[in-house]
């Protein structure tokens, strides 16, 4: 038998610890040289805003080869710039390069003034208005709706309520069937006193939800990640990539209490969406009304939204043109992994292009941008009390 630890002498012990310190020193030097952690660099134009919400259209430098515009609807949890984290990890940039006309909703950071917002306000209000702006801007009767995570649930609900406005529905890692016990969040939510939570906070802090996400893999996310980080700190670019992801993870908007209350009770607890019992405002949501083509993407190793929560949608919709797509990876990998860049965005683009009536638009890009701004302006003039001016810009927070 070999003698264990024979090579682990004082010298190597000191060396190992010394290496940690050296890496930290170099990393700290790299950190002092970083002025800003830039995210969401793809150029975009603000076309509409209402309360905290902003609707952007990305600038399309090339030819639009798919005439129906795509509206990306992200979750209320975390921020939409995950789709455009950095140039080489940007699903948005990828979709643009494939000839799509891309819009995105930034839900903003709710304050206590937003605490009474409900699912009805988000879906029949904000989302519905944004879709009308996109329809007018692109002069399309219908749009391609692409919902992500909770934004996918919202998009499916919208598509079921207003099928006449949705040409194609794409959902990514979105929960629909909440009866599963596969995900810890699904199990934990059963014992969450959401009434007390909302009563106490009004706007439930993003940190509260983040704490729950970190608990899903406490050792990997609280220790290993930072220890592994020591190996990339010396390389400024790699370190910046790490910091961008860190920024996104901890950039968590609070949740409007009433909306969260309804989402947890009606969806997580009572699973009303798949039972056909969910009411949004005064309307009942029937997933059978989803008669447009559906591309439903799930991640095989998703620990936040397990496949069991995503896949059932295909059995509940009314359309025959439905595709279930398995992405081999985790929840976050769907957006930023290199595999995602190579595989997923092209697949979405290909699927959309292959649907009926998706050829190029007759107008030029500059004409389309002008129409977009005018459409936003027109809707804003009608709803002047909602928003001061389309040109109003500023920081998101």
């Amino acid at each position, binding site marked *: 038998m*070999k003698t264990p*630890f024979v090579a682990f002498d004082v010298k190597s012990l000191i060396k190992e610890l010394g290496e940690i*310190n050296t890496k930290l020193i170099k990393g700290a030097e790299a*950190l002092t040289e970083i002025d800003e952690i830039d995210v969401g660099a793809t150029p975009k134009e603000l076309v509409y805003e209402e309360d905290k919400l902003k609707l952007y259209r990305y600038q399309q430098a090339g030819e639009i080869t798919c005439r129906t515009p795509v509206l990306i609807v992200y979750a209320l949890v975390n921020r939409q710039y995950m789709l455009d984290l950095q140039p080489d990890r940007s699903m948005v940039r990828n979709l643009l390069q494939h000839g799509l006309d891309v819009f995105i909703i930034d839900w903003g950071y709710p304050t206590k003034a937003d605490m009474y917002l409900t699912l009805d306000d988000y879906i029949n209000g904000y989302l519905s208005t944004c879709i009308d702006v996109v329809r007018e801007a692109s002069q399309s009767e219908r749009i391609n709706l692409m919902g992500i995570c909770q934004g996918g649930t919202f998009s499916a609900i919208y598509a079921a309520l207003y099928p006449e406005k949705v040409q194609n529905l794409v959902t990514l890692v979105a929960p629909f069937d909440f009866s599963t016990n596969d995900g810890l969040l699904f199990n934990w939510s059963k014992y969450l006193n959401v009434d007390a939570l909302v009563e106490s906070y009004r706007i439930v802090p993003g940190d509260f939800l983040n704490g729950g996400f970190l608990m899903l893999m406490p050792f990997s996310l609280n220790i290993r990640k930072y*220890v592994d980080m020591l190996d990339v700190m010396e390389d400024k670019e790699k370190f910046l990539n790490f910091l961008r992801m860190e920024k996104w993870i901890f950039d968590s908007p609070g949740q409007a209490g009433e909306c969260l209350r309804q989402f947890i009770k009606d969806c997580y607890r009572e699973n009303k969406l798949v039972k056909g019992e969910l009411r949004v405002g005064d309307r009942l949501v029937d997933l059978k009304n989803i008669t447009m083509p559906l591309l439903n993407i799930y991640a095989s190793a998703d620990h936040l939204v397990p496949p069991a929560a995503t896949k059932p949608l295909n059995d509940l919709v009314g359309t025959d043109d439905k595709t279930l797509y398995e992405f081999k990876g985790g929840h976050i990998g769907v957006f930023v992994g290199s595999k995602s860049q190579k595989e997923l965005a092209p697949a979405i683009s290909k699927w959309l292009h292959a649907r009926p009536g998706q050829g190029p638009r007759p107008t030029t890009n500059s004409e389309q941008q002008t129409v977009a701004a005018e459409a936003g302006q027109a809707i804003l003039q009608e709803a002047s009390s909602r928003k001061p001016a389309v040109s109003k810009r500023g920081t998101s927070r």
Partner: protein
Amino acid sequence: MENTRDYFDAWLKAQEKLFGGFVENTKRAQQLFFGQATPQGAGEASGFQNPFSSWTAAFLNSLVETGDSHRHAIKHGLSKLLGGSNAYVKLYEMWLPLMKAAQEKSLNTDSYKDFADPAKYKDLIDHIFGFDPDAVKLMLNQAAQVLELSTGSAQRFTKPWAEAARESMNVLPQFAEGHPESFMKMFHSMFNAFDSTFGRVFHVPPVGKDREKIELLLRSFDDLSVYAVKNTEYQHTMYVTGLTAMEKVVATLAEKIKSGEEIKQFDEFFDLWIDVSERAYFALFQTEAFAKLQGELLDAALNVRSHFFKLMEMHLYDLPIALRSEMDDLYKTLYELKKKVRKLEAQLREVNP
């Protein structure tokens, strides 16, 4: 970059401290390897953690000393990053007695208990799950301040509670050492505190306009004690799971050594520890019992929060400021008005497309 000179002066100081730490570290390492000491019970600036701790503390301070707001932002980012490394070094310290035992060929799960320092492991788990052992004590102190405002008799009233909190916190390491019976100490100390404070109050019915306030205070203290107990139960579950996982790590390690495998680097131990611990906690988190306990803990915490908010409102009522409930009303009105406007606009669009 502003204040560059100050910054690098401070940086230099940090480097000096670092090298000082290295010298000390080398001495300690030699002592350890020649069997003259084990790092049990070492504090934050002791043992192998010394150079790391002194370096991180000095470095972070050097960033603050320059007074530049940009430095503060860097400090914030860096301290978060260093936090992960700090846990790594804490584990490193725990690893040392194991290594010593392995050298003496006496490594097994039973002998590990003789070497391991549960308090140190508790620190590690606290770090991973963000537990703050002083949080309940802090809350009690805040509660005491509220009470002081109300009754002017805080000293006598809150002392037993502060004592109870301190005792409860002292009990925690015993849980970690695997003495579940010590859990009862928590209840006893809380009961004693209750008996010597509220117990007395209950014999003297409060009268006049302060009655409501006093009743709410009593409820708040009651909520706080429920929270403290639930929190202890929760943390106990976490520590026990962690210690069980650690035993499994040691057993796996002992097995590997027995079969002739060499484990030369700490990183191998680290990987094994992360892997086994993650699995152990995942299994725990999946149970209904844990989900229920977590729900109860949150509920208890929210009860405390909500009663303290009510208390605060009572105390602020006479001041010329808008209270939370008043702002809630205002927000509600604003929300309803916006909805009405939107509805009217939609109707207008239908009439006048």
